[in-house]
């Protein structure tokens, strides 16, 4: 059953990802991306990462994608289909050929590497019952072993706030765009 979910969700994730790339309208891309994220969240869940699955939905779907949407709305881009006139045309031509070659090469080498993994001997033992990423151990690790990156990320977030302020602030009067950047 879990396997079936995985493969289903995997297929969904791939199709949705293709949708992101191929969609004419950026809004459609966002929706496809959302689908992909949900599919991944499902896979996380069945793989034993419930915390991560939750974060995936909360942060990605809840914050990041909304931010994308917000900007598209703000700049009123949804109707500007002329920005990319013919989506299918971009799959022709030299650039497309190179794209497929190179992306294919990246895929090929990763796939080759992945398939070269020697599976652990014997039957796979069961995963921990409460999932791999239990919140408490995760938090413990975060505040001890990973304290330094954690602290630095806070500095980074501060810097991001400043950065967004510098970049997006309108010349006259404040533009309330910047809180989106800090909404993690």
């Amino acid at each position: 059953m879990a396997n079936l979910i995985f493969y289903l969700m995997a297929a969904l994730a791939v199709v949705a990802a293709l949708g992101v790339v191929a969609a004419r309208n950026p809004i459609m891309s966002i929706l496809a991306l959302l689908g992909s994220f949900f599919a991944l969240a499902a896979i996380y869940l069945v793989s034993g990462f419930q915390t991560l699955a939750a974060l995936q939905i909360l942060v990605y779907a809840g914050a990041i994608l909304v931010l994308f949407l917000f900007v598209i709305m703000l700049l009123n881009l949804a109707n500007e289909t002329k920005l990319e006139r013919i989506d299918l045309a971009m799959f022709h031509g030299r650039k497309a050929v190179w794209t497929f070659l190179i992306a294919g090469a990246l895929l090929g080498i990763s796939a080759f590497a992945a398939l070269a993994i020697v599976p652990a001997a014997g039957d796979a033992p069961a995963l921990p019952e409460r999932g791999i990423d239990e919140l408490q151990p995760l938090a413990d690790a975060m505040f001890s072993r990973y304290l330094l990156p954690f602290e630095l990320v806070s500095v980074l977030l501060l810097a991001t706030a400043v950065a967004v302020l510098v970049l997006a602030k309108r010349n006259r009067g404040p533009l309330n765009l910047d809180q989106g950047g800090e909404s993690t």
Partner: protein
Amino acid sequence: MRHPALLDAALARRLGAQAGGHGDHGHAHGGHADHGHAHDDAGHSGHDEHAAVEPGIGGLAYPVAVLAMLVSFVLSLAAVVKLGSLGEHAVSFESPVWHWIDTGVFSIDISMVIDRLSSVMVLIITGVGLLIHVYSGGYMKGDPGYAKFFAYLNLFVFAMLMLVLSSSLLGLFVGWEGVGLCSYLLIGFWYEKGWPAEAGQKAFVMNRIGDASFLIGSFLLVHLFGTLDLSDIAGSLAEKLAANPGMQLELFFAGLCLFGGACGKSAQIPLFTWLPDAMAGPTPVSALIHAATMVTAGVYLVVRLNPLFAANPNLLFLIGTVGALTAFVAGTTALVQRDIKKVLAYSTVSQLGYMFLALGTGAFSSAIFHLATHAFFKALLFLGAGSVIHGMHHEQDMHKMGNLRKYMPQTFLTFLVGAAALSGLPLLSGFFSKDEILGHVYAQGGGYYVLWGIGILTAAMTAFYTWRMVALTFFGPERFDKKHFQPHESPLSMTLPLLLLAALAILGGALSFPPVFEHFVRVEYLRDWLAPVTDAGTRLLEEHAGAHELEHTTEWILLGLGALIALGFAHTAFHRFKSGIATDEATFQRSPLRARFLFEAWGIDKAYTLLVVQPVRVLALMIAAVVDGTLIDGFVNGAAQAALSSAARVRTMASGRIATYGLWMGAVTALIAILLVWNR
């Protein structure tokens, strides 16, 4: 140029240009400027800018130079007297040694050595040199380069003495190149005219060709003997050769190379073409350098190293052949010259050929004998010619002279003596020295008979051209323009040396009479005097080929033949030309090609220009333009161009597009991954 008349006209123009353009303009710069222009059709007018300079301090040059020469001559005499008093066993004495170049293995030392050979040379150089210095005082008077001239002349004598006195081959070479330099400077003395400078350059370069060969010869000698000391080489050669017969070949090459040097300096085929051009210099220079002394340096060199040449009969025969051919070619050329100095120049080449012919038979002392007598009579003739030119206001074309005996009797008489000696009229110095040579050649037999034949022919021609010259110059109608000027006799400073030299030319034969004269009087001073020097070579020669003595009857016949030929051809020539230039014109009319061929010394000079000079020039331009400019530098600049063009190509990568940049990143990342996995 098909039509003979046309050809003749062209030729005459050419001759005129040559005679005029190459005119020896003597002292008369300012005073005869108009006349100078008449002959100066090449457009050289530069020299007329200078008025005759005030003597000033330059006026001191003459007395100082002559005094120096006088002291030098006296000292030479003293040295020779001392040498003579040393007796049979001590044949030389030497100055302190100067360690010149330390090569790390052996040291090249120089000292001044006077021995029997160099004593002869020294006397000729300082003696004849002194006379010519005296003469020059009159000849060069008023020339702006008066002081410079004497400086050069004294420098020349220094170098020449260095050449003959040096104990080392390299010291000799210092003098050798030194005289070359002075020759260069003096030929180009009137450089404003342009072509004298060219002639000087030609002389220097031709000499340099010989010198290059000389250098190789000296390397071979170092290789064979480990030293450059002349007496060491000459002294130890026979021993070394006996110990190691295998060195014969190397000796041959060493000798050949040194002979190559001698060819350059002594104007032998194939390097003789510079000497006629050297007549561009003032006439005293021609007399001293290009007749009496420098050009005989080659003869001196061969005699100095006589064992080296004697060690190889083939080499000797080669030298004899070159000498005979040179004598013949130059003799034929002298037959048709119109420029009086050119006649003498070719005659000099021809006589030098005789000397080499003598060397080729191993008759070293005969060569020196002819060298000495030739120094006397040829110096005399040149100075006489100088006097004529001087008197004719720098006219050198004999076709424009005639009957000068009326205007310059002293010159005429002395010139006559010189001519007689040169043509080998009996009992004059030239007669003895020339016949001694021919006798030796005849005595060798075999291939030498051919050389003897050539020698006899040349003797005939010598008599012919000499008396043609005399007749054209001093007899016949007056072909010069009397309205413009009056030929005049030269001052005493010029005629006095003429007289002294005439005496020498007459008496010079007494240095060495032929062996057959033993019946009357045994005079072989020179041969005996030189014996200590030439013995080594003679002995080697006898080892190879045995001694060649002529029977007395044969010798008498040869002497008689020589006298007969000289007299006969002298007579013919004199009679043909004493009435004017008709014979010359006839010659040029009858077969212009042949005349021209002879006139231009068998076209050898032209051939060199065509086959060597021009190709070298073209090659140089080709190398500079094609090889250097296009190939080598093209490669260098091409590298720069390649960098720029590949830079332009690299540039296209930076299209400014994010996607393209990303593509490159992805591509190379994938490539790295694939390569890593591949090479695992």
